């Protein structure tokens, strides 16, 4: 099937008997939609085409599992446009599993990706929610936000299925992601200051791509900060202090520029580590945030500050 041709779009998925208490379901009807008024440009739309299975979803969405199909329809009447179908196995108010079948149409370009309303299927289509999908960073899947019935958006992660892959109509349960009330809130980055105080050394320093870039160095750093890989950090250290207000001073070398950030409001829960990022001093303005995970002496995370994202790996040297 040509990727840009509208294929038969109602795909019957054989459900494993008894797996979710229903016999059959589909990813929804995606055929017959007219070209939308606003067509997502091909360079944005093309990477979304594919079949997907839900692998992670925010607990608040009450979704057990699901599948999605997104296609490009040329319809013979204009530029190709995105149209999709989404099948969700959802927990009802009494905890029972229900199937939700939605059409995703029309897609529109939004900041960072695309968005489409969840339309009910049938003669009278009504909008039951919204799905926002971020432009994929690679071929493996998609990330986005799902909102239904006026509920707050919940994070959702899809894994791309290969041409010959199938879940046979019984997608595996998705990992339930923690909601905001389970965010780290214990002060510091561990049960005792002795666990986390001290010097941290950057372990994944990379060659500075802007080193030989002359006048282009700043735009390279900025652009990489918006790209999927973040800004390559060529060096860095962090000193974490405990006490009444645990904090850290972080020095990063990136793009030929040394930047000092001050981390305050350090908090933890399990292996999660978070902090506010301030500029200038520990009492300076909040310019970003840090989110990471601790595993032994290794701390891996992402720092976003002043519109630039850095993926960081540290080793605690004590």
């Amino acid at each position, binding site marked *: 099937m040509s990727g840009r041709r509208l294929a038969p779009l109602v795909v019957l998925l054989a459900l494993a008997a008894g797996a979710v208490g229903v016999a059959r379901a589909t990813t929804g009807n995606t055929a017959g939609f007219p070209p939308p008024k606003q067509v997502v*440009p091909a*360079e*944005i739309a093309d*990477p979304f085409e594919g079949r997907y299975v839900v692998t992670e979803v925010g607990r608040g969405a009450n979704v057990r599992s699901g599948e999605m199909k997104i296609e490009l329809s040329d319809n013979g009447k204009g530029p190709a446009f995105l149209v999709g179908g989404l099948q969700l196995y959802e927990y009802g108010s009494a905890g029972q599993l229900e199937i939700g079948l939605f059409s995703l149409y029309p897609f529109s*370009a*939004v*900041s*960072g*990706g695309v968005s489409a309303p969840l339309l009910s299927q049938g003669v009278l289509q009504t909008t039951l929610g919204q799905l926002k999908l971020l*432009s*994929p*960073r690679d071929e493996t899947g998609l990330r986005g936000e799902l909102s239904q019935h006026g509920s707050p958006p919940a994070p959702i992660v899809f894994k791309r299925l290969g041409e010959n892959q199938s879940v046979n109509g019984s997608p595996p349960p998705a990992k339930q992601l923690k909601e905001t009330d389970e965010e780290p809130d214990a002060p510091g980055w561990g049960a005792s200051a002795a666990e986390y105080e001290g010097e941290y050394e950057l372990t994944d320093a990379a060659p500075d*791509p*802007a*080193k*030989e*870039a*002359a*006048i*282009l*160095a*700043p*735009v*390279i750093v*900025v*652009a*990489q900060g*918006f*790209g*999927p*890989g973040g800004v390559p950090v060529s060096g860095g250290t962090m000193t974490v202090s405990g006490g009444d207000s645990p904090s850290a001073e972080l020095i990063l070398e990136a793009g*030929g*520029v*040394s*930047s*000092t950030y001050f981390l305050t409001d350090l908090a933890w829960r399990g292996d999660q580590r978070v902090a506010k990022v301030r500029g200038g001093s520990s009492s300076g303005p909040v310019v970003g945030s840090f989110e990471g995970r601790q595993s032994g002496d290794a701390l891996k995370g992402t720092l976003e500050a*002043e*519109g*630039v994202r850095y993926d960081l790996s540290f080793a605690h040297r004590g």
Partner: protein
Amino acid sequence: MKRLALFACFCLALAALAAGCGGSGGSSSGGGEFSAEANAACTTANARVAALPRPEGEAQLLPYVEKTEAIVVGLEREVTALGGSGDAIKAYLAGLEESAQVLNKMSNAARSHNLGAVGELASQLAEIGLARLASAAGLGACAKAPAVQP
């Protein structure tokens, strides 16, 4: 007397030739005056780039890239107009031209919110190695990165 005059002319010619060799790596650059003016143009362009407010969100990315592109295009025109010659100068100017083209693509990618392409184009910019080309052309100021304040 005639020989002395010929020798004097020869010395003057040598001195003139030496004065014309401002570049390095055996390439002619059009003279010390060219180097000085090109370096001054680069210093000014670097200062303009350093003064650009750093984008703090995607909405500010496009104008930032467009302004950088305009500065690079202006620098290329200015250095070209100075009339330098030699392979190293040509290579540096070609590097500036390629940079402007990649920045133009980056503007288009930012305009269509294709941040993956923005990141890839950043790598293409880095591969040009503009500082190396400027150094080879004997343009020390052009090899420097703008002094952006963190």
